[in-house]
């Protein structure tokens, strides 16, 4: 058990240090690394012809857990506005007004999201005006149906 765990950790380190530098898309990297290591583990069991279910299940669960945590943290550090505010505050350690934080971080994030919506063809922009596209309405309807299914009532962007 311990041998395989050490091998898996070494494999993860190799993937992180070598492959990650080549693949800039973190989600694609996670999929490639996860399935490669799972296939490697499976081939060890087939090669040794020892089908210890306890060991296989534990190995699979540890790998799944590590990769989920890795992807989740990536989402937090790249998308979370709160973390971005904190990093901004830490740069000069100065005192800031709410308005300054809005102008430096939240406004940029808002613009970034508009860019994402435009890139995904959910929103149309002409000059300085924006309009939701049919594709955007369709996606929004799915979200609204899901919210109805889960009985989620939103008053504003937050509760």
């Amino acid at each position, binding site marked *: 058990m311990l041998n395989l765990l050490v091998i898996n950790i070494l494999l993860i380190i190799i993937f992180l240090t070598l492959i990650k530098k080549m693949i800039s898309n973190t989600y694609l990297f996670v999929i490639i690394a996860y399935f490669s290591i799972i296939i490697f583990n499976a081939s060890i069991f087939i090669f040794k012809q020892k089908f210890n279910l306890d060991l296989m299940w534990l190995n699979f669960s540890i790998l799944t857990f590590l990769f*989920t945590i890795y992807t989740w*943290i990536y989402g937090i550090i790249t998308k979370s506005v709160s973390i971005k505010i904190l990093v901004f505050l830490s740069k000069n350690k100065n005192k800031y007004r709410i308005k300054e934080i809005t102008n430096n971080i939240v406004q940029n994030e*808002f613009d970034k999201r508009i860019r994402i919506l435009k890139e995904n063809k959910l929103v149309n922009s*002409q000059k300085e005006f924006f309009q939701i596209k049919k594709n955007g309405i369709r996606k929004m309807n799915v979200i609204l149906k899901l919210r109805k299914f889960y009985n989620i009532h939103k008053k504003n962007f937050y509760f």
Partner: protein
Amino acid sequence: MTIEIKFIIITFLICISQLLQLAIFSFIFKKIDPKTNFLITSITCYLLIIYFGVFFFKINEIFILASILILTSSIIINFTFWSILIWGFTVSMLEAIKDKKRINKYKWIQIYSGNKNLNVFTRDRIKLLLIIKSIKKKRDIIQINSIGLTISKIHTFLRKYFYYA
């Protein structure tokens, strides 16, 4: 089929069932807070794993530990889906212009923030930083403290050495 295989199948079914449990709880308790709902269903899933592992199948502890790890991974994935559905920034922005014909950015911000401005959103995010005690706030002035600096350093370290972002 051995009990181990049965337990693995049940583990996956419990993981998937959280999404159904969320719907059932919100149907029974109409005004339940989504955070509370998620917390209750997560605890229910853990209890189900322990019940089936310890009392029903009386299986090896390693199996139960592995199933708990799989369930934790599943809860993280479900939470991501749940938080996008409720608090998603981009989703909420899209929702704000759903019924509007043509609007400019200023109007978009106004609808999004409920006839106010983006400072409302900043205040909301700052509330979260105050909960984890990473900043100090005096009236309208914000300053980072030692906890905040530590989190920021961890963030920089992870970004540099684990994500190369």
